[in-house]
């Protein structure tokens, strides 16, 4: 695992999606592709080959876990690390998402000022553990 450069972010809420992309690009310096739905993310993941997936959990039609399952079918993203974003902080929910293979969870609402550092720290911890 090397440096974190490319992030695919999937979020159906326009305001949050725009804010996240702006923060990760401007502050984090990452190359970010954003998708408004799981369906759109499948094709984008194939073309973009991200280093990291950041998936909102609660999305209409195709939620975060369903999106992950679909993206995992693409050879380019079969093993791409994923961070879920969720408003639910109950232990059982967090454990459920970790059991799906997430390397970590970001709870919403998140602090826009520290999001980029959070992502990098989670990536670093993941790399150290591999």
């Amino acid at each position, binding site marked *: 695992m090397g440096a974190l450069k490319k992030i695919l972010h999937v979020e159906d*809420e326009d*305001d*949050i999606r*725009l*804010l996240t992309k*702006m*923060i990760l690009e*401007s*502050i984090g310096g990452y190359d970010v592709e954003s998708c408004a739905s799981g369906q759109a993310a499948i094709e984008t993941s194939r073309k973009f080959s991200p280093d990291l997936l950041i998936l909102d959990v*609660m999305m*209409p039609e195709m939620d975060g876990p369903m999106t992950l399952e679909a993206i995992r079918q693409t050879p380019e993203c079969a093993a791409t690390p994923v961070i879920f974003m969720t*408003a639910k902080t109950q232990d059982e929910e967090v454990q459920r998402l970790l059991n799906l293979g997430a390397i970590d969870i970001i709870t*919403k*609402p*998140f602090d*826009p*000022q520290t999001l980029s550092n959070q992502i990098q720290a989670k990536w670093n911890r993941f790399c150290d553990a591999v």
Partner: protein
Amino acid sequence: MQYDQMTQDVKQQMMALQANYENGLLGKIDSLEEAWCAILLSGSTPEAMRDIHRISHSLAGSGKMFGYPGISTSAQAIERILEQALADNSSISDTDAKKVSNLIQHLRQVALDEPTHDVSVVENSGADPDASYQGRTVLVVDDDPNMRSLVKIRLQAFGLKVISAFDGEEGYARALAENPDLIITDHVMPGTTGIDMVAKIRRNQLTQDIPIIVMTAQKFDGERNYALERDYTGRCGALAYLEKPLVFEDLLQQIKRVISL
């Protein structure tokens, strides 16, 4: 690009995103209210409950991030009620229905008032909150939601509480109800114009002494409209007449005159 410039650029982008969020906020609350009215009229169908759940979830997630913790709290409460009803495959009880109605009203009120400082996206915008501004309220009256949002965000960063109105009629009502320390008003607005609103404010003993700053894009033959400026600053006793596009430092200078009086 040097770091300092990048930070300023990021702040500008954040402010634009926050203004964008605020512009859409009342529309979302309208949609929530419509969906709720549909339930009150036709009963708790799963589809209608899912609509309300979806909208309240959206507001709950975004509110706090964009400086509206009250929106998040109330929307989360609505979300929980709907989640429970959907999970139980039951309709919403009368008690919960009253709660939802009250929460929607509260959402609208919070959206019209100002976000608090502690979770604002631009909390660390680089402006230092001025101790002399704490507890002071500014009423911004402008039919342009972008202008309302931008002035709100900039003034909040200095520690001012900012409330808004969409037109002259609402501006007068809020001036009467809230007795702000300062009013900043546009001139051209639908219905009651800025000058008619200011004249009304001056005629009422309760509001006649509130300092007023006018900001307007109104020109006369492409030049500064001195006649309008005289009407405001002379006849109506406005503190200052500023032209749009607004130079924020000019506005701040005028505000400091009010605070130091």
